[in-house]
Each structure stands twice: as structure tokens, then as C-alpha cells.
């Protein structure tokens, strides 16, 4: 490896499920991010390398992968800031690998949709006009609505790794985002779902999800808030039933 090149070591998995590592030399002056490096490899060295990407600007959330052992979005990881010339790229952990760096995101999206991440209204209303919301009310949940569903938090969470049914950080943060929305009236349905054995009670504040989140959503804080909401809801239900 010369001074002028980065060494990219990429995990490969072909159609037969055979796994190996391929190594490529990428010139330093041609690329700045890991994603650009992978695109350079695909254009110049190896057309068979598969990886997902779309926007290249940390908005679409498709290029999640493990760079040097840490889950990151490849598009926003600048190679010169990694502190080493050897870039090791693996597919995200805790997902089924389809090919090379492409993983099966279906379980993640299923869990995401299980938390009812949409506005729920009760009663008969006329929806011809909008439901008002002040900037302060928007600020309440703004942070949690920044999630781009890249799934990095699921790859970082040790509990997702050992208990694949655990909902995971991003779906729980999405639940809080809608519970905090003033237009929403469906908190009790969501708390009913997340208060169980596979919801918030599986979180033990390892804090890795917050560490890897590229958008600053802070899922571990979201889970803490959600847990307090859940405790209040469960205890309230318990005492109301005995009246």
C-alpha cells in the first residue's frame, strides 16, 4: 500500500453464500467519503460489488454499513477523518445479508410499522380544515422526526443482537415522536404495544444507538421518555381498574 492510496477491505458474500474479503487500492485524491470510495471501486475495479445508496447526502438512509467496526452511513463518513488508511467495510450487524453490503431491512420496517407511526384521531371530525400546531408544539417532537430509518441503531444495539424480536431504538423513538404530537390521540394504543416484554423494558441504556445515530435523534433519551409515559399509563390503568 503506497502513501497515495487508501486500502479498502470489503466483505463479500456471493449468491452461494460464500463469504470473503476483497481488498482494493483507492487513490486518496479521487475520493473523500467511504461511499465515494465504494463507487470508485465499482466504476474502476469491480462491477460485481453490491451496495445500496441513493442520495449521497445523509437524507435517504440507504447506505448504512459497518466502517472500521462501527455502524455509520457511508455517505457521511469522511475517510481522512477515520485516522487510518485502512478502511474495513462490513455489512450492518443484526441483519440478514443478501449480497455483499446489501442487507435485508424488512424486519426493521416491520417493527417500525408495528409502533403505529402515524397520526391517530378519535371520534367523528370534519377533516376539511387542518389541525393547528404551534412552533412550540412542533419543537416538542422535532428531534425525533429527524429519523431517516437508516437502521444503524439496530446494528449498534446489543439487545437487538441477542433478542431479534425486540422493537429496537428507532421504532421506539418513532412511537415517542407520535405520542408527543399534539394532533395525535392514539398514545394509549402505542403504549399498549411498547409496554410489553419486547418494548421499552428490553432497553438497558447502553447508549450505543445515540452514539451511532447520524441525525442526532437520541433514541436512548426517547426510550427513557417513553418508559416514563408507559409507567404513568400502566399505573394509572391499574388504579383506575380498582375504583
Amino acid at each position, binding site marked *: 500500500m503506497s502513501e497515495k492510496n487508501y486500502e479498502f477491505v470489503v466483505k463479500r458474500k456471493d449468491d452461494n453464500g460464500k463469504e470473503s474479503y476483497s481488498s482494493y487500492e483507492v487513490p486518496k485524491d479521487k475520493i473523500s467519503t467511504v461511499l465515494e470510495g465504494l463507487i470508485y471501486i465499482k466504476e474502476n475495479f469491480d462491477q460485481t460489488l453490491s451496495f445500496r445508496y441513493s442520495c449521497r447526502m445523509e437524507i435517504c438512509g440507504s447506505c448504512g454499513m459497518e466502517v472500521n467496526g462501527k455502524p455509520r452511513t457511508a455517505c457521511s463518513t469522511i475517510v481522512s477523518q477515520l485516522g487510518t488508511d485502512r478502511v474495513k467495510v462490513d455489512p450492518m450487524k443484526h441483519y440478514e445479508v443478501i449480497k455483499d453490503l446489501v442487507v435485508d431491512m424488512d424486519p426493521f420496517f*416491520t417493527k417500525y410499522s*408495528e409502533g403505529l407511526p*402515524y*397520526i*391517530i*384521531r*378519535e371520534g367523528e*371530525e370534519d*377533516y*376539511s380544515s387542518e*389541525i393547528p400546531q404551534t412552533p412550540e408544539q412542533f419543537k416538542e417532537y422535532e428531534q425525533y422526526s429527524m429519523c431517516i430509518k437508516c437502521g444503524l441503531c439496530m446494528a449498534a444495539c446489543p*439487545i437487538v443482537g*441477542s*433478542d*431479534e*424480536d*425486540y*422493537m429496537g431504538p428507532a421504532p421506539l423513538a418513532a412511537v415517542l415522536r407520535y405520542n408527543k404530537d399534539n394532533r395525535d390521540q*392514539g398514545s394509549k*394504543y402505542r403504549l*399498549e*404495544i*411498547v*409496554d*410489553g*416484554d*419486547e*418494548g*421499552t*423494558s*428490553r432497553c*438497558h441504556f447502553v447508549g450505543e444507538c445515540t452514539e451511532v445515530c447520524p441525525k442526532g435523534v437520541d433514541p436512548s433519551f426517547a426510550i427513557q421518555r417513553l*418508559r416514563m409515559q*408507559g*409507567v404513568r399509563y*400502566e*399505573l394509572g390503568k*391499574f388504579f383506575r381498574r380498582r375504583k
Partner: protein
Amino acid sequence: MVICGGVIKMENKTLKKPMTSRGTLGTVSWFFQVISGLFLVFFVGVHLYLAHIDFGHPIVFYDSVINNLKNPWWLLFYIAFVWVVTYHGLNGLKGILYDMGTRPKTRKYIAYILVAVYIVTVIYGTILAIIVSQIVIP
């Protein structure tokens, strides 16, 4: 479920059960874990101080243990200690076993077994403490 004007309206009877059973009480059991943990910091502190330091008169040997339990407040303290520490320990173990990704059916058995162990331990501990407090030192 009715979709009108981009807003999804949901009524109680139309709410479908989630795909995997997520049960209830997980949050509350973990909340009690925190509360019991904070109590135990106090309990264990007092216990360690009495049993190992207490500047010259630690409660270690037979006579000192029984004399200590003769005081009804200490008896109450130790019985409460047994109840709380056993809950904290077994609930923590439950958390570890659940985190291993056990199936819901296995979890039911784990919960039953741990509740049984808890009840047996607590009853045994309470009876032991009361019997010991009644022993007359020769």
C-alpha cells in the same frame, strides 16, 4: 380504520393486534427494579457496615447475630431486605433470560418458575428470621 384527508382515524374495535405479542407489565416490572435497586443501596450499605465494620463490634458470630435480631426493628429490616433483594435479583435474572431472545412460551415458564422461587425464598427467609430471633442464647 378510515383514511380521510391524509389522517388515519382509528376506533377501539378496529385496532388490530400487533404482529408479535408484546404483552404488558414489562415496563412496570423494570420500574420496580429501579426503585428496589435504590432501596438496596441503602440496605446493603447498612448491612455491610454492621457485618464488617461497626468499629469493633461487627455482627458476625452466633451471639451477635441473634442479639441483633432480638430487636424487632432489625428483624423487620432484615425481612424487608430479604423481600426486596430477592425481587431485585430474580427480576434481574428474568431480564437477562428475556434478553437472550427466548420464545414467548419459554418466557411464560421462566416467569412461573421465577415467581415460584421468589415465593419459596421469601417465605423461607421470613420464617428463618423469625425462628432465629426466638432462639434463647444459653
